[in-house]
């Protein structure tokens, strides 16, 4: 028994050492705090969903990024002060996993020493990368993280190193609500939400907040669902003037198809996740009537925006399809970084961050962008109408 007590003392001593060491590791300060600097080239990281459930969207964004980088490099690179430096892309797959996204972010900023990151596509993967981006003082621009809180800290302050190129949900959701009341005169609507990510649920929340008419029915679906007949049949005999369905084109295409086949012909309004030529391909052109969606990027905008026109043309030439919104947003993300480097005359990551925060009247494919204090781009929104599978009309919303 006495021996046992003696040993207890020994354990106690060891435990004290362990705790002291633990303290030592946490007390260690975190580097000098100057961010990453470029070498011969400007290294830009891509933290993207290239496999897993969001891979379809991630791959489209990667295409947009590559298009932008090729174009910049062909013109000699980015002007940093007096020299021109080419961009070197470091593309890494985060598997649509939040844990991996954090790891990819750490690798990009610590090992690859990139000066800026484009991505991730989804809000959750994005927020998982924030701690590592912030620690290394490297900015990231997400082409499609739409949660209003994405660029904000818990106390409401802005996340210093986090930017996005897309609209946040509140703006799109409330715009859709206003549009449905004012333009479509819809008094009774049904809502069909993609319930598998923040995107659909966030838009629905914002929509419900603004919409003044009556929400007759609010139903949800999951990403990967293919059969919506049950929900649509239950809506058929309800008196509804329109359907608000925030989600992505893969599911929305099927909803449109099955709704029209079931004889539901009311307008269906969605969000920029629908803005893809594949929507009409999946739904079938003859079914794609009376479809509206909010989008920052109109394929019609080529008529007024020359940048968009060239983008659409080069994209078509390279990938043989009409450029989807995700590619356009990712394309703009790269150019926003370029613009920040040029205005700050430095490709140091902290400087780029400052440059990104100061972006004003940046001419992009998805519109003229001004970064507001919460790192959300302010740009005009378009609502497109599809008739027989093609854009027949575009409404601009300020």
């Amino acid at each position, binding site marked *: 028994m006495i021996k*046992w007590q003696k040993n207890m003392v020994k354990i106690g001593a060891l435990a004290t050492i362990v705790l002291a060491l633990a303290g030592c590791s*946490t007390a260690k300060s975190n580097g000098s705090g100057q961010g990453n600097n470029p070498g011969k080239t400007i290294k830009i990281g891509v933290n993207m969903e290239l496999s897993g459930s969001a891979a379809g969207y991630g791959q489209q964004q990667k295409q947009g990024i590559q298009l932008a980088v090729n174009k910049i490099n062909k013109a000699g690179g980015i002007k940093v002060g007096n020299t021109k430096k080419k961009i070197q892309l470091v593309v890494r797959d985060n598997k649509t996993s*939040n*844990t991996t996204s954090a790891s990819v972010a*750490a690798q990009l900023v610590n090992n690859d020493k990139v000066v800026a990151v484009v991505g991730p596509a989804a809000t*959750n993967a994005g*927020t998982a990368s924030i701690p590592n981006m912030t620690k290394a003082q490297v900015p990231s621009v997400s082409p499609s993280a739409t949660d209003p809180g994405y660029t904000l800290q818990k106390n409401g302050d802005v996340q210093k190193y986090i930017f996005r190129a897309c609209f946040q949900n509140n703006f799109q959701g409330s715009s859709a609500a206003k549009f449905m009341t004012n333009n479509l005169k819809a008094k009774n609507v049904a809502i069909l939400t993609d319930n598998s990510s923040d995107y659909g649920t966030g838009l629905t929340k914002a929509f419900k907040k603004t919409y003044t008419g009556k929400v007759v029915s609010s139903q949800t679906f999951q990403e990967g669902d293919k059969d919506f007949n049950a929900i649509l049949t239950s809506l058929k005999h309800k008196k509804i003037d329109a359907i608000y369905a925030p989600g992505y084109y893969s599911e929305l295409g099927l909803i449109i198809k099955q709704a029209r086949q079931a004889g539901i012909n009311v307008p269906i309004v969605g969000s920029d996740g629908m803005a893809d030529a594949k929507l009409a391909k999946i739904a079938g052109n003859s079914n794609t009537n009376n479809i509206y969606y909010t989008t920052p990027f109109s394929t019609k905008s080529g008529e007024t925006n020359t940048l968009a026109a060239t983008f659409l043309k080069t994209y078509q030439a390279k990938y043989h399809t009409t450029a989807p919104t995700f590619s356009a947003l990712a394309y703009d993300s790269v150019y926003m970084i370029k613009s920040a480097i040029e205005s700050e005359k430095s490709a140091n990551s902290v400087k780029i961050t400052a440059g990104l925060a100061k972006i004003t009247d940046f001419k992009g494919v998805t519109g003229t962008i001004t970064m507001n204090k919460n790192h959300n781009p302010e740009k005009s929104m378009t609502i497109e109408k599809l008739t027989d599978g093609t854009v027949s009309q575009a409404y601009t919303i300020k």
Partner: protein
Amino acid sequence: MKANFKYNIFWLAVMIIGFVAIDACEFLGIINAFIENMLVTIGINIILATGLNLIIGFSGQFSLGHAGFMAIGAYATGIMTQTIATPLGFYLSMVVGIVIAMIAALIVGIPTLRLRGDYLAIATMGAAEIIRILINNLKITNGAAGLFNIPPLVTWATVYVLMCLTTIVTVNFIHSRNGRAIMSVREDEIAAEAMGINPTRWKLAAFVFGAGTAAIGGSLHAAYIQTIAPGDFNIMASIAILIIVVLGGVGSITGTFVAAIVLGALDTILQNFGTLRMIIYSLALILIMIFKPSGLLGNWELSFKRLGTHQRKEQSIHE
């Protein structure tokens, strides 16, 4: 007793040396945020897989719902540390997570644990999915958007210490009357029952214990990654933990360690292969299973006791 104590000190020394080594590497800059991320992921996976190995390897119950209990721990931490953003708050939330996960395991386990083999697997998978869908539709969990900006209350050291603690507790549990009773149920339920061992009770004990450790893993995950969403805890997440257990060797805690480290390192290295990463990963998985069907270590266990068998004789003489 003296001999037992010697082994315990030995293990303690191993743990301290491990800690000091990581700490030194961190201090010297050999371990940067990226490697640390990998190590923490491995540590959390070890906690999760050790608990699952107890259920699958030692009690012989095929559970496919581990991620559901992990989710409970993660959300307990995610929600509670929003208001109590202190280390104490974290530990409190972890305890709450463990308790809720254990209660959930009781509710799930009491009816389902009488099922056998694959039927149990599919039932536990269903239960975990029900947990995830509830989280996906609740207000307090912020639905599909999940929780982010969770305060960073966990360092690699916390994960390391908790990994050691859960492993010690689990191994102690296995190497006791309790563990033997659990293994007897795995070996032969009817015979165990004839020896006065209530199979349902012991299966449930292992299941609930495993759920508790899963909750610990979940809490650490939430506080380290600082972002959680229902999608993190789907069927594929349960399968990822199962893969570690089977790859290491069902019934070998040492194997779980080895597999978690091998897979963690593999996953990190494959990060350099872009879109090929998952293809290489799946090929590696198939090949390891074909050439090492009983896992990397089978049911072999690292034991200092066995390394010094002469000491065992000495011990029995003393007794």
